[in-house]
């Protein structure tokens, strides 16, 4: 089977970030698909937030019905391509495969899904466009996975949907924030084009400033909020605005989209989440001689998935536990090091996690020429929601889970701004549920 030649926004990245998992060829996909037991009411399908009918699409691969396989995936999850590459399958579909309990390797579901999706895009596959246009219009704010999924589902049901995104390229974190060896920005943009092909309109505009919610309410019957999270949390320590300090999301976005971006020789990453690990791995791939990741707790408490941690060790990232930064050391107006204090874990706090305590007089300094803080994204909404009657609690929008409906019945929400920051597949599931709710509510 032919697949499209790989491309990247920054061509050099093709070499620096070869794919983490090689694609299956058609014969290995056939053999793997034949291993699937075709479970009834399959646990992999239940585990998938978008409930892709996994045995069904795998069976179709085994019969050579590759378009049917891809459509089975896309019917459930319009971002089937990116999900096949970025999903933490170990804790989702593959983690629930019954073969685990039979002393056998689980089915390679992620790569089979990717096989079907690669074939779909290589064959310039299209989805049927709705024949009966609906008179109601829906606005989706934010161009990330939640909005794309919501827009696609509504468009397929005939609604006129406009996605408002403040970035030059739509796709949200799929375009700007995923490690290049997992998902290339160009693949994310192929999915954007698929959504556009369904009739969805994309507008680059900052909602809240360029366009107000009141204006949207005039022009659109419903508004879906797929706002994502805010900028990365600040460390709130001296020196963090010095040149040489770049937060993980900006770091990832820059190397993915800007040619000639130079990484430091000795890089310090601060944080223990998946984004910290993505940034650390990337720094290594971009040519840093040493990459040191510091986390204030230990490997056991690290929020990153275990397989991400394992992979990072192979990449050559060095991990340091129980250390918290207190100052960025600045010399001649550039970051040249980080001062840390050693920590220990005390009694559990109100969130159930053991508190971090500083050990007095334990400060130490590590020289470096680049600091990448990765402390997670803040929860500041860019738009004034409360004045439109939409509640915001602890930086998240509370919704009715099965429908995504907010306190204001004309507004629906999903993705990171609702769930606090989970996976692409969770955002897709939220967006699709909201779309179904809008459609059924409207048609009832």
């Amino acid at each position, binding site marked *: 089977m032919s697949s499209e030649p790989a491309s990247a926004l920054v061509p050099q990245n093709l070499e620096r970030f070869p794919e983490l998992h090689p694609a299956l060829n058609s014969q290995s996909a056939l053999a793997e698909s034949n291993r699937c037991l*075709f479970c009834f*009411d399959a*646990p992999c399908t239940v585990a998938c*937030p978008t409930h892709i009918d996994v045995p069904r699409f795998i069976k179709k691969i085994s019969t050579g019905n590759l378009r049917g396989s891809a459509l089975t995936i896309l019917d459930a999850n319009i971002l089937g391509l990116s999900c096949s590459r970025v999903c933490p399958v170990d804790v*989702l579909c593959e*983690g629930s495969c*019954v073969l685990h*309990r039979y002393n056998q390797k689980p089915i390679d579901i992620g790569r089979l899904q990717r096989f079907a999706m690669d074939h779909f895009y290589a064959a310039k596959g299209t989805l049927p466009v709705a024949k009966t246009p609906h008179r109601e219009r829906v606005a989706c704010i934010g161009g990330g996975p939640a909005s794309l999924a919501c827009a696609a589902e509504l468009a397929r049901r005939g609604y006129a949907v406009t996605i408002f995104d403040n970035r030059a390229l739509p796709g949200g974190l799929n375009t700007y924030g995923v490690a290049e060896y997992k998902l290339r920005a160009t693949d994310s943009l192929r999915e954007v084009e698929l959504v556009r092909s369904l009739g969805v309109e994309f507008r680059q505009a900052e909602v809240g400033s360029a366009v107000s919610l009141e204006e949207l309410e005039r022009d659109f019957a419903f508004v879906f909020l797929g706002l994502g999270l805010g900028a990365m949390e600040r460390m709130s320590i001296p020196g963090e605005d010095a040149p040489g300090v770049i937060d993980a999301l900006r770091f990832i976005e820059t190397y993915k989209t800007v040619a000639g971006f130079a990484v430091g020789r000795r890089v310090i990453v601060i944080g223990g989440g998946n984004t910290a690990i993505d940034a650390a791995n990337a720094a290594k791939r971009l040519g840093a001689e040493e990459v040191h990741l510091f986390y204030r707790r230990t490997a056991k408490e690290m929020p990153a998935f275990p397989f991400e941690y394992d992979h990072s060790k192979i990449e050559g990232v060095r991990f340091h536990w129980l250390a918290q930064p207190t100052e960025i050391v600045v010399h001649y107006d550039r970051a040249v090091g980080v001062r840390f204090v050693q920590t220990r874990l005390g009694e559990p706090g109100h969130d159930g996690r053991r508190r971090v305590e500083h050990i007095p007089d334990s400060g130490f300094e590590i020289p470096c020429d680049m600091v990448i803080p990765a402390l997670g994204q803040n929860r500041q909404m860019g738009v004034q929601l409360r004045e439109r009657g939409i509640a915001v609690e602890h930086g998240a929008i509370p919704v009715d889970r099965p429908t995504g409906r907010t306190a204001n019945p004309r507004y629906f929400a999903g993705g990171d701004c609702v769930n606090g920051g*989970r996976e692409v597949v969770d955002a897709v599931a939220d967006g699709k549920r909201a779309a179904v709710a809008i459609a059924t509510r409207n048609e009832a």
Partner: protein
Amino acid sequence: MADLTTNFAGIRSPNPFWLASGPPTNCGEQIMRAFDNGWGGAVWKTIGEPIVNVSSRYSSVDWNGHRMMGLNNIELISDRPIETNLREITEVKKRYPHHAVIASLMVESTRAAWHDIVKRTEDAGADGLELNFGCPHGMSERGMGSAVGQVPDYSCMITEWVKEIARTPVLVKLTPNITDIRAVARAAKRGGADGLSAINTINSITGIDLDTFTPRPNVGGHSAHGGYCGPAVKPIALHLVQQIASDPEGALPISGIGGVSGWREAAEFFLLGCGTVQVCTAAMHYGYRIVEDMIDGLSNWMDEKGLRAIDDFRGASLPKVAEWKHLDLNYRIVARINRQTCIGCDLCYIACWDGAHQCIHLEGHAKPAAVEASSSARISTTPIAKLDAVEVSHAATPPVRIPRVDEEECVGCNLCWLVCPVENCITMEQVETGKEFQSWEMRAAGGSDQS
């Protein structure tokens, strides 16, 4: 140590594994290599007036990623001059005097032609003759092969002609492409045959190229029906062998053919009365070397069972094949599911609901559509250690996914056990009915008092 030496209808060989007449026995060089690998005998690729073959010649059925579950061929008999084949028979027998060389023969249906070929073949040193009344393609259009084997009188007549002058044992190879194979077996026996070989290949079209619409194998845009063999045909061959072996008017020593790939299949043919087995497809697939495990596996199995020779168990399963009307209507088994080993695939559940008797249930006794609807309505979220105190465990099957059998309703059909991918997870267990043996024949004769 089991004794595998064989005397089959007077033909001796060091073991009962013979190569069947076909591409692996095309010439002396091949057959000698086969004997070096351990084969006990070989039936020479059918000798007759040389033919011209087409290309291509074979096609196969793949199943679930496995190649050649079934093989089909449209190759004809030997394309080599008769003298060449006979000269090589002499040479092989000189070098391998203790191995069995059986000449498969097919000539035009005249007494003179048969007398001539039989005499020349025996003079060359063959240990026995196999009359090819089975080849289903090409030769049958010229009045030979299965064209003979499908008419009992012709089979009987030609067997008689051969027996008039043959000095070595004569085997008749039977075609399965006939309504009742026993008719030809009986005819061969009437004609004086010393043994039977069964079965020859089955008429087949293996498949069609969905791009060109040409069936396979493709010979310049056309195809012809061929003869089907390989693992897929074993059940058909076993049944036909049993039919012949159980028929007093047709029973003769039988050389079993059809889907033998290893010692297990061979043992099955012996249990239904065969004295030797013949192998072709498996040797075409993997080479002569497969015979090593056939010999080794059969010997180990026989040792384990305390069997010293094939005659100790040959035909032992024949009394266990009965007509349906003699089966016990009061014998009852039910399915039991081992909750410890069940992996929760629920294939037994859907098989029972859609393909059997709706007596396997999931919690709440929901019908399949309701089970699926309840799952698709569930909201699943990626578990994230930071946000959720969850551990993903592969260890135990969730109890809701382990089905239960309603033993009152279970008819003991075996389907759930057949579809279960886990060995010994579903077992079929006998339950006491307290009723005496009653067959359909008894019930039909004796009224309905026991129903």
